[in-house]
């Protein structure tokens, strides 16, 4: 019932995203309009995939570090991606894919660095190490980003910052295809880890007694969630709060079992970002808002309500 409701909401969000935009497209030419075919449809799909990736990554990371604060960006990935993107923009690398690829590389570098910091005695990933290492790497990358931006010229500076705020304005079919081909592997790794993540929720010791290799689980889930985040940042910049809010929201609806939680976080994240992007496109038309601002404006009050309910 709840699942059907969520799927219906997702479908409605996608239809809405294609049906409305800053310009009016008459129904008679809807199917043939290049605005619908080359702009709205790929953008709606990309928003859904990116939102889904962020939502799932958030749910998985919260489970693996056993901390409700964890989100894909707390762990330093956005900092690394931002640094990569700004370096590419400042260096004037040509081509539409230069910035996304540099962001992807930056996120992976940050992931590797945080992983190395959190690797305590041999092969155990320490959850506190992941969070603290993530914050440290994120701050360091942020400082380097600011240094590059303050030395770059004014136009590049402004646009690098705009890119960092996140947006799906560059969405196109090739980006949709790249993301759609890429996503299934890390998603499959996370969905397969659903049961051990349930056990981990009981505590590290009980999980171990029940036969979970906690170290291996942490490594697998951390890397898969980071890969999801890296691709999301690469195609859309830093879109905050989806990875933080969506897991808490779907947990309130679907409970704590990861078999239901992880797919629900994917669909919920996709729905939220698709709706937020629709708002970003139309609310100040013909101008456009960075979508991260919409997710924050919508998501943060909802999140505050959730927190209020838990603490009450």
């Amino acid at each position, binding site marked *: 019932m709840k699942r059907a409701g969520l799927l219906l909401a997702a479908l409605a969000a996608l239809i809405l995203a294609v049906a409305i*935009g*800053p*310009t009016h497209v008459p129904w008679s030419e809807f199917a043939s309009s*290049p*605005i619908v*075919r*080359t*702009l*709205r449809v*790929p953008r709606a799909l990309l928003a859904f995939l990116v939102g889904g990736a962020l939502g799932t990554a958030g749910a998985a990371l919260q489970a693996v570090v056993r901390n409700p604060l964890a989100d894909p960006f707390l762990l330093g990935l956005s900092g690394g991606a931002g640094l990569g993107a700004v370096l*590419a*923009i*400042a*260096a*004037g*690398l*040509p*081509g*539409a894919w*230069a*910035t996304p690829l540099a962001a992807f590389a930056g996120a992976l570098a940050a992931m590797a660095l945080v992983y190395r910091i959190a690797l305590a005695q041999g092969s155990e990933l320490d959850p506190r190490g992941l969070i603290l290492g993530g914050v440290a790497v994120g701050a360091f990358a942020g400082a380097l980003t600011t240094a590059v931006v303050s030395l*770059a*010229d*004014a*136009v*590049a500076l402004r*646009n690098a910052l*705009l*890119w960092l705020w996140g*947006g799906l*304005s*560059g*969405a*196109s*079919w*090739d980006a949709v295809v790249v993301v759609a081909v890429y996503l299934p592997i890390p998603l499959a790794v996370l969905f397969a880890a659903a049961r051990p993540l349930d056990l981990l929720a009981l505590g590290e010791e009980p999980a171990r007694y029940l036969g979970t290799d906690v170290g291996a689980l942490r490594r697998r889930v951390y890397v898969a969630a980071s890969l999801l985040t890296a691709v999301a940042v690469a195609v859309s910049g830093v879109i905050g709060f989806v990875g933080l809010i969506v897991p808490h929201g779907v947990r309130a609806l679907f409970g704590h079992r990861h078999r239901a939680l992880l797919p629900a976080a994917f669909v919920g994240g996709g729905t939220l970002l698709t709706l937020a992007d629709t708002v970003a*496109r139309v609310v100040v*038309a*013909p*101008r*456009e808002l*960075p979508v991260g601002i919409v997710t924050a404006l919508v998501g943060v009050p909802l999140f505050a309500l959730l927190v209020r309910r838990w603490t009450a």
Partner: protein
Amino acid sequence: MALRATRRRLPISAPTGVGIFALRRLAYTNLAACVALCAGTRAPAQGLGVTDDAGRSVRLAAPAQRVVSLSPAITELLFALGAGVQVVGRTTWCDYPPAARAVPNVGDGLSPNLESILARHPDLVVLYDSPTNMVATTRLNGLGIAALLLRQDRLVELARDARILGRLTGHADRGDSVAAAISSVRQAPALGLRIAILAWQNPPTVIGGASYLDELAALAGAENVFHDLASPAAVVSLETIAARDPDALVVFADSGGAGTRPEGLAWQAIRAVRSGRIIVLVGSRFGRPSPRAGEAVVEFRRLLEAGP
């Protein structure tokens, strides 16, 4: 003596065709600007007094001999006024005229480096009228250095700057003639060509109505489809560009690195991109309000007529 010589060499040309032009421009200008203009040209005899674009009154005992310019447009204007030898400091971006490069660089001018400005011992610092520069101005005044905040977003403002700077640097007549030349840039006949000017590709950022480039485009006889946007530049969706359907897309060859030329599948939704009607401008020549505006308009017109 020197003043008289200047006067002989530079007859003040009658500003032909200014009438209609000035009226059209005035519609864009606010009252404060007019007040500043009047104050700038009618200062008392003792000392030199002007009101700048921030509404501050600036007074010099004698024409400034050591000027630091913190805007490329102002540096170019000072050289055009014949005050080039009085310029003792410039920004990293001041690259025109070529002689300006020989002037010591005091930084990028974005958040003024007071120490390197002071090292040049200026008696006048000219800054673009922005909030950060307002703070710097207050501090310069605290140190006993006169500072002037000027805007050059439109030709009418540049002409007013020419008069103000001409007075303050002892080249008042040259200031008047440069201002008259700027004000007499001719409006080319309408081409019936609708264009969008792309400042940046991702996120798609277009030039709006409150900008010098919009003015140049209008003078060259083209219509900016984003003229209705009240800001100098704005992020818009590709869908909006596609729907407004410009005949040609104007991009820049050097406006801050990669990503300015439209690339990627999504841009194919725009007719001008599909048909390859893309006009490339050199940012340093067109993006900056300058006494060369007349040439820029002619060159822009030629590019518009030639097509891609």
